[in-house]
């Protein structure tokens, strides 16, 4: 059995709330070639849906968006 390599992608969105707190949303399987317009399109519907986790402050905006690609290699431990 050989080593196994798996690659995963996560869209990491940092949301800012009116009290200054941040909260990160991680969404698996982001689309390839995401654009800023697609991310910004999340702002309007998020405004009355997301709340901060400390004092339930209202959502303000998404500050950053990152696509994180992780490659994990599972080593084959059966080989000498």
């Amino acid at each position, binding site marked *: 059995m050989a080593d196994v390599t798996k690659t995963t992608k996560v*869209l990491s969105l940092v949301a800012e709330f009116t009290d200054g707190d941040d909260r990160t949303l991680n*969404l698996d399987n*982001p*689309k390839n070639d995401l654009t800023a317009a697609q991310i910004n399109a999340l702002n309007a519907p998020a405004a*009355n*849906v997301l709340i901060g986790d400390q004092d*339930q402050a209202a959502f303000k905006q998404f500050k950053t968006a990152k696509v994180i690609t992780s490659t994990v290699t599972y080593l084959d431990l059966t080989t000498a």
Partner: protein
Amino acid sequence: MAKTSLIISNTDSTTGKKLQKTLTDINSAATNDELKTFAQAVNAVTTNTYGESNRVDRINVDTEESATVSKLFREITVTDAAKNATAKISFKRTEDEASYGGVSLTVFYYNTQESTAEKLTTSSVSSEAPTALYHVTIPNYNGRLYVEIEATEDFYSEFVKLTISS
């Protein structure tokens, strides 16, 4: 205080694989339409090709110390009288706890959140299975609807999940 979460369930139209995203700290005052719009926007940035959303609350119920009545109010607005309002209640117990016997849940429906509200209807479910899913449908309902769950017997449960949709 029950925590409000939004669970977005998707079925990939290519693979048929079930995908699920759970977002916590959701504004309980958000309307179904706002939640659905947000869920659709989330789906637009991921590879899921089909999605739907429902309001979901999860509460922990444990009546080991006393016959505590656990209540959870959720609200939906049904605008199309031709559609049914459906409450889906699922619960799961650990294998060991299942030996304690059956569970009895009672579901009440109100048209207002006031505690003195007149009950529209009542439905009960009992099960000895360690897991179960129970659907309650209110046909031809038009307006705001509040759903309350009571665990009226000893209830050793990992969770009770209530989803209401229209």
